[in-house]
């Protein structure tokens, strides 16, 4: 009997407790407070809002697992979006064909990955703190973007990009499909690949990992490169959704992605954290803001509630640890 419980525990993982409980609480509270909450409309709004924040959160997740942070994610997404926008404009703007879109997307992903590679190299070779490296990269990219766009919008894209932002396939929003594909890719990467394995090990102890014969520098560079590439995918989705690119778009997501990771049970010092609980945490955050919307509040209140939720989960985690210790004591 207890063996089955252990098995189940191992399967779900301890990280699932926080976001799982939060999910149940949110569904219960809003389900009671608002009859429209448990409806297709809520699902629809969550499904369309989730991908942007979600993709950026995936980009944030990998660096956090190595014990770092990537503060440049939102502007990397902007710059990558800008790359695609230019390729489209250079090929006729509204008239641009799918070939231009494919080329632009590849270049966008390359640009995103390059920003990551530069950060990764600096972090891996100088051991400078990732917060600082990515912070200066963020300031640089923001400046670069503002310089290139003069603070304005870039728009005028072919109509066939619309569905990538708003369309549905078999009733499922296309951005959501892209996002779920990326979630699965990240899940496989982290649980089944050598790179993912080494990412966790580096997060817990870089030197011991190096002594074990792992090329830690390569892993760090790859982690930031993948993070940058994921930002680019977010940037492409954002371009399609808003039908424009603007530097600063999605800027407010930056700290929310960190919040979502922590809410999803990712260890702030690195080494531990899984994709699926983070996904659930993201759904909770979106449900919260949709629910608050239904009862008449706006996004700003939702932001505050997100903050409260994170603080609440951390406090509960602390209380739970305390409780566990006193419980063990009583047993002996």
């Amino acid at each position, binding site marked *: 009997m207890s063996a089955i419980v252990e098995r189940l525990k191992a399967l779900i993982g301890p990280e699932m407790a926080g976001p799982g409980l939060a999910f149940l609480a949110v569904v219960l509270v809003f389900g009671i407070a608002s009859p429209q909450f448990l409806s297709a409309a809520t699902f629809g709004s969550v499904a369309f809002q989730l991908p942007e924040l979600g993709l950026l959160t995936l980009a944030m997740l990998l660096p956090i697992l190595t014990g770092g942070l990537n503060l440049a994610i939102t502007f990397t997404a902007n710059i990558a979006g800008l790359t695609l926008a230019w390729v489209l404009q250079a090929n006729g703007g509204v008239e641009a064909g799918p070939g231009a879109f494919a080329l632009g997307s590849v270049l966008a992903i390359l640009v995103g990955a390059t920003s990551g590679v530069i950060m990764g190299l600096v972090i891996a070779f*100088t051991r400078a*703190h990732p917060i*600082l490296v990515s912070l200066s*990269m963020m300031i640089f990219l923001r*400046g670069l973007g503002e310089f290139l766009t003069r603070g304005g919008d870039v728009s005028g894209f072919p109509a066939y990009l619309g569905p990538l932002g708003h369309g549905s396939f078999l009733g499922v929003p296309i951005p959501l499909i892209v996002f779920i594909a990326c979630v699965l890719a990240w899940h496989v990467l982290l649980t089944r690949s050598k790179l993912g394995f080494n990412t966790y090990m580096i997060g817990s102890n870089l030197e011991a990992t190096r002594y074990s014969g792992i090329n830690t520098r390569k892993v760090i560079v790859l982690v930031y490169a993948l993070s940058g590439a994921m930002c680019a995918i977010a940037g492409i989705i954002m371009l399609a959704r808003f039908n424009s690119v603007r530097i600063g778009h999605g800027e407010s997501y930056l700290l929310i992605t*960190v919040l979502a990771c922590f809410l999803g049970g990712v260890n702030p010092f690195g080494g531990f954290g899984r994709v699926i609980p983070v996904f659930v945490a993201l759904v909770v955050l979106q449900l919260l803001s949709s629910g608050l919307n239904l009862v008449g509040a706006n996004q700003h209140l939702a*932001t505050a509630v997100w903050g409260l939720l994170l*603080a609440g989960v951390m406090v509960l985690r602390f209380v739970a640890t305390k409780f566990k210790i006193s419980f063990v004591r009583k047993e002996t």
Partner: protein
Amino acid sequence: MRSFVRTHATEVSLFAVIVAISAVLSVSTANFFSLGNAFDLLNISSVNIIFAVGLLVVLIAGGIDISFAVAASVVQYGTAIALGWIGSGGWVSGLLIAASLGILLGAINAFLIHRFKVISIVATISTFNIYFGLLMFFTKGVSIYDLPDWLTDRVILFEHEMPDGTWIEITLPVLVMVICVIATWVLITRTTTGRQLYAFGDNPEGARRFGINIGAMQFIAFGWLGLMAGIGGLIQAHYAQEVVPNALYGRELDVLAAVVLGGARLGGGKGSVLGCVLGVLLISITQNGLNLMGVSPFAFKMIIGAIILVAITLSNSRIERLLPFVNQKGAGR
């Protein structure tokens, strides 16, 4: 002197960079090398320096705070409203209200961090969202332009016309900034509390074994930053002559970059007031110089970001670190 260079390498090299940039700018632009411009720079940088010395104390104690800039916005709004309640008030009551509100918001961070052992970046990211979300929710994003006259009137403490026709002005923000800088300097270098903060940031377990009150350290560090955020917030409202709820949003990362450029270390135990002030000034001077050189304002941030990236890379890499197999003496320890 030699030992000063050795123990203050960051400050000395920052100073050298500032001198070099200034030299280039005074040759290439007519207006840079004037006292008037220098005092302008001080006026512009005051609020950031006030924030920076506050953040420095938290970094020295081994923490980090993302929430102080939005906390300053909350303080601005709260102070404006409170002043409305009590009738106009004056600088004394304004500063008192702003300071108390700031300390309170800082104490909330310290409470989460100390009482519930939430690490500082998580705690302050959550309070960042709470403060900013609630502020925008309750204010509906509406700015306050109708501030008391004493708050919006420029206070010029000293002015003097130079022979070349430019004016030297020392304004209230500069005075307040100087007081904050000196107070922080006294706190962290001259008082036993300050030394305990350094020790706590350097080796928390060692500090604990000495019987240093860890909780007190957290409350002092975050309280001091709250105090500086409160004062800085009020001064910013005075300088801008309005209260805009999202005016300071994003400022936290710019200030953090400047403080770290000044030699403070994420992780604690290291950093000086001088380095911190030089860090902010380096960024302001570069910006000012680029402006005078006629560079597009859109390019400022890009250049500054590149400078910080290079500075961080260089300061972290003594050349031998870039090459594998060297400087791994005692790697087995």
